[in-house]
């Protein structure tokens, strides 16, 4: 398997609080890796460093493919007033001239077609013309996944993608992320808060504690004691 994302020696401090203390991991094409860890363990910061939303103090991030990594968020972050298809198109604006990207009416036809096929991939092509705010939370998260796909990245990151969703919608989104890894060959890394979901959907599980990877297991071998060690309350440093 070829490595699509490799992270080496990632460090980040906010003031005198060290959030990432030398994080190393890789994600291969075709696998879904889940990052587990208590609040403040550095999971989200690690993803934000990979996509450049947070600037790491040190470390190296290597990503396969022409574009940067794509990302979906817990808060979904769609433009609620715009249509579903326009939101998906917005993921593919990189490199377009301003004259074709300042408003949805200017978006090129190829972009719209690509967005439409991304929507088909997440099973929401029939809602393309609806306003994003009209969709349920789970559907909106799938639109956000389609927007990330429209970017054409080989690496897809997901920061607590299902924390705001009900169990059925959460399962749908996790199934989708697993399919994108297994069928479409993307390298998918998701931060989760639910060990059960990790067991059910992930190929591999990484555990973060105090800004370091302390656990790396195939999801099938994840034990209760592994999880207890990650979430043990006496080990959590209160910020």
């Amino acid at each position, binding site marked *: 398997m070829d490595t699509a994302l490799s992270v080496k020696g990632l460090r980040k401090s906010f003031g005198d609080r060290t959030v990432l203390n030398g994080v190393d991991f890789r994600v291969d094409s075709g696998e879904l890796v889940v990052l587990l860890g208590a609040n403040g363990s550095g999971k989200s910061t690690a993803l934000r460093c990979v*996509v*450049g*939303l947070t600037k790491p103090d040190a470390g190296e991030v290597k990503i396969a493919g022409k*574009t*940067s*990594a*794509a*990302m979906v*968020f817990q*808060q*979904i*972050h*769609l*433009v*609620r*007033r*715009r249509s579903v298809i326009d939101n998906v198109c*917005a*993921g*593919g*604006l*990189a*490199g*377009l001239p*301003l004259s074709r*990207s*300042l*408003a949805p009416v200017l978006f090129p036809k190829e972009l719209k077609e690509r967005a439409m096929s991304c929507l088909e991939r997440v099973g929401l092509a029939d809602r393309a013309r609806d306003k994003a705010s009209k969709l349920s939370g789970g559907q909106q998260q799938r639109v*956000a996944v389609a*927007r*990330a796909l*429209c*970017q054409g990245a080989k690496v897809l990151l997901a920061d607590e993608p299902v924390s705001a969703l009900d169990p059925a919608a959460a399962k749908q989104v996790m199934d989708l992320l697993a399919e994108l890894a297994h069928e479409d060959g993307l390298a998918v890394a998701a931060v989760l808060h639910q060990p059960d979901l990790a067991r059910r959907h992930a190929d591999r599980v990484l555990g973060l504690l105090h800004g370091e990877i302390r656990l790396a297991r195939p999801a099938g071998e994840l034990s209760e004691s592994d999880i207890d060690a990650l979430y043990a309350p006496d080990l959590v440093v209160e910020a």
Partner: protein
Amino acid sequence: MKTRKYLTTFGIVAALAVAHVFAWRGAEISPGALADGWHGMARFLGEAVPPDLDWATVVQPGLEACLVTLAMGLLGTTLSVPIALALAVLGTRGRNPVVFQLARGIMSLLRATPEIVFGLIFVTAVGLGPFAGVLALLTHNIGVMGKLWSEAMDEVDPGPADALRVSGANGAQVVANAVLPAVVPALVGLLLYRLDVNVRSSLTLGVVGAGGIGFLIYQSIQLFQFKQMATYILMVLVVVIVVDLFSAAVRRRLAR
């Protein structure tokens, strides 16, 4: 701990009470004067009814003046948009502190100076008439609308912009496809609110000679033509209600 809380509450109430006593004296409040003088008011109002509805001398000039008032309110609002927008963007948080303070400072200065003062200043420059009124409204409005817009922009959720930035979109693409769609409804809502206020403010500007229906009201009072004044006030009532309904309807649509 509890005693301290009670003492604080007591202190605040006492301070408010003292402030009201001073304010009462400072404003020369005298219910007796109001009671003694009520028939003056009654006569004034009695002379105002029925309103004078003569078409050629009152109603027609009144309607024309209403249009001038609306025009002043409209232009005073829309012409202030470019500078207000620029100052609003410069006055959003997270910018260079010098630029931020300068932009907010300019807006505060324009906001603190009443339209009527700007009116007096501009009348000396361009003479009596609606043009001076438009200039006065737009100058003051730059300060008020700029500040309201700045605050609306500060409140925008940065999430959608982050999402686009991650995908590799450049600054202009992020603003056009994430920031503006989120903020424009709020900006338009505030713009309509200011239109509503500016139409009403242009009435008072009539007093300093800026024209419109406000000037006719002022003139009719000066000439003791209270029946004409009543007609004009009824017209103002209609104008204000219509503008208010219009802006409320548009804002409701935008909120959806």
